[in-house]
């Protein structure tokens, strides 16, 4: 079965066909949601809700396009909604949910990078991880985030600058959750 066959089967009333899509994309989706939300548990909640949103909206899916970029827009929306709800609870982030501990890389380096990433705004974190962990090119970033190519260039530059400053520990100020709440409320 492929994505299109699964989607057609779902819209024809076969609920089990949706399992194919969930199992195919859930790992990627949880990784991406974790990059935005910072916490694995929140990411799982967002992914669940996003898949249900996608299921309801399958009838509007254009089968000529790829499923995951379409689903990513739904997932992103869910993540930012959840972030507004959860940021009011102001729970701290724990490093360890976002990055793996690959062999040959010091644990300190991974932890320092992850802590710095978690101090970024979710939008910066999303952009930087899509670029550097998923290897998306600028055109793909523009498509995924629905922003012009020029905006990708400037936003990526400033996000990396902020990340570098976080890594160097030279940038203090408001917490990430505080800014996220203000931005998306």
């Amino acid at each position, binding site marked *: 079965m492929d994505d299109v066959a699964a989607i057609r089967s*779902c*819209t024809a009333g076969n*609920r089990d066909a*949706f*399992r194919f899509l*969930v*199992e195919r994309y*859930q*790992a990627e989706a949880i*990784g991406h949601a*974790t*990059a935005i939300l910072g916490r*694995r548990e929140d990411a*799982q909640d967002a*992914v*669940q809700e996003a*898949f*249900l*949103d996608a*299921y*309801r*909206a*399958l*009838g*509007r*899916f*254009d*089968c*000529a*396009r790829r499923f995951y970029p*379409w689903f990513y*827009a*739904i997932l992103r*929306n869910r993540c930012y909604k959840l972030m507004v709800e959860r940021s009011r609870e102001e729970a701290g982030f724990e490093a*360890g*949910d*976002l*990055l*793996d501990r*690959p062999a*040959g*890389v010091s644990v300190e380096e*991974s932890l320092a*990078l992850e802590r710095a990433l978690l101090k970024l705004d979710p939008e910066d974190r999303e952009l930087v991880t899509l*670029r*550097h*962990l*998923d290897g998306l*090119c*600028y055109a793909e970033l523009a498509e995924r985030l629905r922003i012009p190519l*020029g905006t990708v*260039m*400037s936003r*990526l*530059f400033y996000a*990396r*600058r902020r*990340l*570098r400053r976080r*890594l160097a520990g030279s940038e203090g100020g408001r917490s990430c959750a505080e800014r996220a709440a203000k931005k998306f409320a």
Partner: protein
Amino acid sequence: MRRASCEEIRIAAMTLADGERAALTAEEIREHLGGCAECRQEVAELEALSAVFTRQRRRASTEDVWPAISERLAEAAPAPQASPGQPRILPLALLLGAYKLVEFVPDTAWPLAVQFIPLAVALVWFLRARENPLRVEGELTMEGGQ
């Protein structure tokens, strides 16, 4: 010609370093970096940061969200597949258009009840399609927009 600012040079330099097409030429960037230590330093630091990521990867996910989703699928029926290039509203529009044309037939005096036919047809149509004609689709466009 306007000279590019330091910020523009840095953005373009990082764009080039990412293997993308920048708004400035490699020549312009090289020339500026040659004479600007601050730009040179920041670009070098950001390139080093990019290099750090080459040793990192996302934590693999082993979680399975299907059991939780499958429990709730029954209450989340998918919308019927819209046929591409043929909006569902089209037959209604054709019907109402035809009705309007009939109105132009000379020497006919339509009773008041007949004049309400288009409104009644539209109402029944939307009720059958379970569509709210006044609904604003903003959220749907954001969530699943293509």
